[in-house]
């Protein structure tokens, strides 16, 4: 049963972060997951210091607020401060992470908190905390992730047309009067929430992986946004299953194994797309001019 819940958790994380990662990928902002995973640390520490407890809700709130602050800061530095976009991201998240580490060291004596445990949640612990539902012990993180998935789906499908326009052709969208900034901030807020919620149950590295790898896998196979989401879900499911058994086999971290499994699927689709592209290439060339 533990295996089932762990796989379900992996799949839920993959499907909510993957949908958003899809949009991030098209906007060339895939490193956002990595940036957020580091930048939320001071938010968590400050929330902990204020609330004085390790209860999830305040820490969530702290992390989510810090996630939104991070995206605003990056935006501010690159547009108002004229920093190169990637440099703005790099500066902001490393700075915030450093502040977080300093806070952790400063209050390490009085607080049972360290960077390791905050950032590297482990999916193996998911089945440990359960609540009963219809006689079934359903782990609490599964509930949280289900709600998250619902929210992400809502944001994605309600704004589907907007996402389509702003992701594939931002300039065109702007020219027909769509407020691209609003879409940008919605996506950033959703990404912050999704990453933070997922961190606690599966750890940072798997979230970073699931934010980009399934989307990239799907993107290699198709350009159609609807089909992409379908492939992303499938990719996430297979990664979760494959990763779980991989970790059973080598006896290592489950999250890490799922990230590796996800990469293997990406590699497969990469090889496949190269093969099929090469075919196209040859036929195009063979045509007489």
């Amino acid at each position, binding site marked *: 049963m533990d295996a089932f819940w762990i796989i379900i958790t992996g799949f839920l994380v993959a499907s909510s972060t993957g949908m958003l990662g899809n949009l991030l*990928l098209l906007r*060339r*902002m*895939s*490193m956002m*997951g*990595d940036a957020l995973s*580091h930048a939320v640390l001071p938010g968590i520490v400050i929330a902990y210091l204020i609330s004085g407890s390790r209860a999830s809700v305040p820490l969530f709130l702290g992390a989510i607020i810090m996630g939104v602050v991070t995206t605003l800061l990056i935006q501010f530095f690159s547009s*108002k*401060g*004229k*920093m*190169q976009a*990637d*440099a*703005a*991201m*790099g*500066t902001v998240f*490393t*700075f915030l*992470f*450093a*502040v977080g*580490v*300093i806070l952790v*060291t*400063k209050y*390490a004596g009085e607080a049972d908190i360290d*960077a*390791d445990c905050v950032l*590297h949640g482990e999916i193996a612990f998911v089945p440990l905390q359960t609540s009963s539902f219809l006689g079934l012990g359903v782990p609490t993180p599964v509930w949280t992730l289900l709600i998250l998935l619902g929210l992400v789906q809502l944001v994605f499908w309600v704004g589907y047309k907007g996402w389509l326009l702003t992701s594939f052709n931002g300039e065109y969208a702007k020219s027909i009067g769509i407020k691209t900034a609003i879409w940008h901030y919605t996506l950033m807020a959703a990404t912050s929430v999704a990453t933070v919620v997922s961190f606690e149950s599966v750890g940072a*590295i798997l979230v*970073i*992986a699931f*934010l*980009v*790898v399934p*989307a*990239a896998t799907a*993107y*290699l196979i198709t350009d159609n946004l609807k089909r992409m989401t379908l492939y992303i879900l499938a990719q996430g499911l297979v990664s979760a299953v494959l990763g779980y058994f*991989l*970790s059973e086999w*080598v*006896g*290592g*971290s489950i*999250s*890490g*194994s*799922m*990230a*590796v499994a*996800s*990469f293997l699927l*990406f590699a497969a689709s*990469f090889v496949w*797309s*190269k093969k099929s592209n090469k075919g196209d290439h040859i036929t195009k060339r063979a045509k007489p001019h």
Partner: protein
Amino acid sequence: MDLFLKYVTLQDPNVRYVALATLLLGGVSGAVGSFNFLRKKTLVGETVAHSMLPGVLIAFLLSGVKNPYVLITGAAISGWLSILLVDYITQQSKIKGDSALAIVLSSFFGFGIVLLTVIQSNYGGEQSGLDHYIFGNAAAMTPEDSTAFAWVSGLVLILVLSFYHSIKSVVFNLEYADAIGINVKFIDGLISFITILSISVGIKAVGIVMMSALLIIPPTAARFWTNRLVRLLLLSGFFGALAGWLGAFVSYSQVSMPTGPWTIVIISLIAFISMLFAPKRGVIYQRWSKLLLKRRINEENLLKTAVQNEVRGLGKLFNRRSISQRQFFEQRLWNRTVRRLRRKGLIKKVHTGFTLSTEGRSYGAEIDRRHKIWEIYLQRRMQMSINLVHDEAETMEHFLTPEIEAEILGELGLCSRFNPLLEIHELVPDNLVNPV
């Protein structure tokens, strides 16, 4: 203060190596980071630094010992592989650079985590300390570490100096560099090599994130101060070294404060200060010059309109209403502009309104003249419709310099004292032309 002196003069042997090492590390990574920064591949360092974890662990598994040279070699190899993979993915598919970086980062690091957990459960005490390659441990720096940093700094310096011109061409204009016969692949590899070199020696001291920050932030800060590559390299290296040195001081003077994070906080502060206060590129300078420009445009518009009203025979006296018929001014804007113009002595207050002073009149006439010269130019040379030229000239009149003006007049075959008194589109243009 005493403590600071003791630190600066390196009297305390405990801190000597740490200070030197962080100084060198900051300097060399600041300079190296500049190349990646200019190629808009700033986050490469982040991916490489994460990707070194599996290399370190595999090196440990193969050798069975924690010899730093062996582990660093492993780190460098897997860092190198990660760069190759990123390049391969971006070149061979439609995946863009940022996604390739994130894919490689997460998969290498994920693999590293799997290896780490396997090692931790199978090896006893002999494996402890391997996680320093994730979080860093500056306090444990040994004299050998600073010697290693010194060697690396020297090597990077020699490489950069000997290939300086090729590197410069490649980071600024790849196609051009390729066209003039520079071996772009080699230079590309060289930049990757020095990046990997500095990360692999530094990562154990300051950790992954701090190492990539040392590559990202110093050039970002330095970029606000200069446009030239040499200065960017030197300044970036200087900022990095300064931050490393001060960071080590904080950790020396305060109990249990980590060196790496303080280095980053200090270098970030340098970057924020640069962003705000740097001349030319800084936020404050830009805001200020924008404000000055707006003010100047308003003043010039007012003077010009007053002159035009005089020429049209509407009298020398003007007020907000008479000006606003041609050039609208809000009450508050009017008050401010008038106050500044009076202070400059360009207009004078008379009982019911204002008049131009002699200087004000010639200034306004000059703007009016530029406006008309631009109108004529647009119409004659750019074949623009007479209905359109006015709006264009409304903007350009504020930006025409005497040099451009002279050039335009020359091109139009007009003498330099050419002075159209009335607006061009109210007369047949040819009537205005004074033949040379």
